[in-house]
């Protein structure tokens, strides 16, 4: 699946590894949509390529739900390629020979940016469930503080898939003068009941695990079983019926006949269990709760009446991409974005790419996205030169 393919692609290549490291900036405080204030707040980020003298070539890449700031290259500590390494690098879709690419871990995350597992300076303990509820708008506000601190006036592009696409849309609406273009991929302006439902199943799985202990599991046993189940559900929603049939079918795992017990029989069970248990090592259960809640709260229409009204301030040029087999963020949600932008006469390109990979396609289907994004960015960059 995505991560494995990423690794495979990486090691196939003969190009020298781009070794990267994370940076952390600290800000005094950030006001939140809930009315609360978080102080202080740290942001972990990575950057690739060089910012040009006019500072016109910066692209902010926004990660999806379980992603982090390590989008590309080989991290010098963990030695692993970034989550979009097949798209970001010299000569790739986001060509680091030409553009300066940034990616930061989201607010509420657990990969270097302040989140529920961070130390609350007022108590000397992790925030846990005393961490304020955050929104996609808050995540973007923090990213803007980061961009300000780097002295970047306008971003050439903001881009990301899934939750990253929500942030890209939020950027275009909240800070219209700061983004020249936006590339929201496999995303929506607001979660449907079905999308909220899947997130709620995940949250309930975490909270039903007794080890969760109302969120106070730090230094103790984490709610690994609950978080693993949540991730298993997630992985089902990222695939498609076709891709699961192709990848697993009804094949049995290491046996000729059913075991007539509740050990692993099918390949698909083995895969999901592996994905679930692996996730526990890299993700904080409370971050799972907070970030899924932020996605569910996201609603670009809220306060505007219509989506077209929400885009009233938007100035960016848009490239919207969806995937035919993505049933978690179906194409109709991208088409809603496109229709609203057209109603505002905004500059928007849209295509539904044919793919069997379901929602995962935005991480996997590299070749077609590369052509689209390269052409879109080049023509956008030409206009700001």
């Amino acid at each position, binding site marked *: 699946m995505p991560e494995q393919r990423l690794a495979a692609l990486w090691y196939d290549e003969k190009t020298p590894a781009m070794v990267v490291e994370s940076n952390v900036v600290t800000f005094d405080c950030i006001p939140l949509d809930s009315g609360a204030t978080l102080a202080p707040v740290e942001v972990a980020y990575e950057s690739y390529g060089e910012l040009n003298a006019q500072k016109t070539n910066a692209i902010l890449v926004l990660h999806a739900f379980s992603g982090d700031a390590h989008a590309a290259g080989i991290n010098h500590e963990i030695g692993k390629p970034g989550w979009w390494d097949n798209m970001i690098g010299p000569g790739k879709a986001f060509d680091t020979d030409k553009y300066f690419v940034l990616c930061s871990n989201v607010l509420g995350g657990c990969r270097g940016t302040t989140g529920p597992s961070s130390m609350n300076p007022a108590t000397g303990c992790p925030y846990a469930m005393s961490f304020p509820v955050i929104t996609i708008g808050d995540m973007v506000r923090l990213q803007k503080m980061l961009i300000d601190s780097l002295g970047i006036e306008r971003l050439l592009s903001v881009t990301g898939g899934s939750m990253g696409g929500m942030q890209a849309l939020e950027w275009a609406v909240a800070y219209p003068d700061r983004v020249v273009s936006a590339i929201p991929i496999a995303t929506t302006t607001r979660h449907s009941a079905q999308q909220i439902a899947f997130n709620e199943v995940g949250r309930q799985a975490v909270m039903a695990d007794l080890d969760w202990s109302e969120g106070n599991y730090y230094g103790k046993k984490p709610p690994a079983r609950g978080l693993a189940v949540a991730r298993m559900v997630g992985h089902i929603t990222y695939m498609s019926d076709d891709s699961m049939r192709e990848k697993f079918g009804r094949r049995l795992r290491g046996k000729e006949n059913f075991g007539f017990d509740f050990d692993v029989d099918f390949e698909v069970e083995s895969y999901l269990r592996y994905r679930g248990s692996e996730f526990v090592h890299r993700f904080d259960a409370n971050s799972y709760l907070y970030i899924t809640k932020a996605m569910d709260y996201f609603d670009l229409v809220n306060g505007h009446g219509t989506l077209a009204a929400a885009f009233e301030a938007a100035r960016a040029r848009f490239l919207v991409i969806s995937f035919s087999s993505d049933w978690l963020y179906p194409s109709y949600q991208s088409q809603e974005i496109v229709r*609203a932008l*057209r*109603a505002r006469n905004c*500059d928007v390109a*849209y*295509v539904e790419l*044919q793919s069997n990979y379901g929602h995962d396609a935005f991480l996997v289907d590299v070749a077609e996205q590369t*052509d689209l994004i390269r052409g879109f960015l080049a023509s956008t960059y030409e*206009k700001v030169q």
Partner: protein
Amino acid sequence: MTAPAPKPQPFVRELLGRSDYTIIGEIVEPKTKVLDLGCGDGELLAWLAQNKGVDARGVEISGGRVQRAIARGVSVYQGDIDEGLADYPDQAFDYVILSQTLQETFRPRKVLREMLRVGRRGIVAFPNYGHWRVRLSMLLSGRAPKTALFPYDWYESPNIHFLTVHDFEDLAALEHLKVERRYFLSGARKVTLFPNLLAEVAVYLVSTSAA
């Protein structure tokens, strides 16, 4: 944003080997807003953006063509022009182009009305079904005509409506359209006499009579 200097006019004559593109290239004023319906892989739009500095947008139903158009930097969205124009505000464009597309739409009359709602002017290019070769082909073969401009077998043709120069003139009158300019072409040559018989392609610049 600076527009690139226009290339010398003679280049327009050779535009992409399509005579209707040549005429459209001549009609469209620089720095205008243009929507091309059924824009294919965005050749014409890319040329207009490069050479006339227009704000170029397109609609195309084929995903593969949309991909190629976006890859060349043109803002095209994948959609059906029979339904897809409703979202645009009135008079959003200076020109709306239907380059050999009208005969492929399900409801050409509605598409014409919509194009002149969202655009101040419409440019309509279509293959002339009244050309003598088409008539002769049908007369002699007794089968659906096949010519250079109508090269398809009837069961594979994307064309679902067939119209002649006279037919378009009639429809323009019926819709109270103002025909601002008309061009008739045979290959790269302009036709002046008997266009309904001699023109392979007709290009019309139309607007609503009220405008």
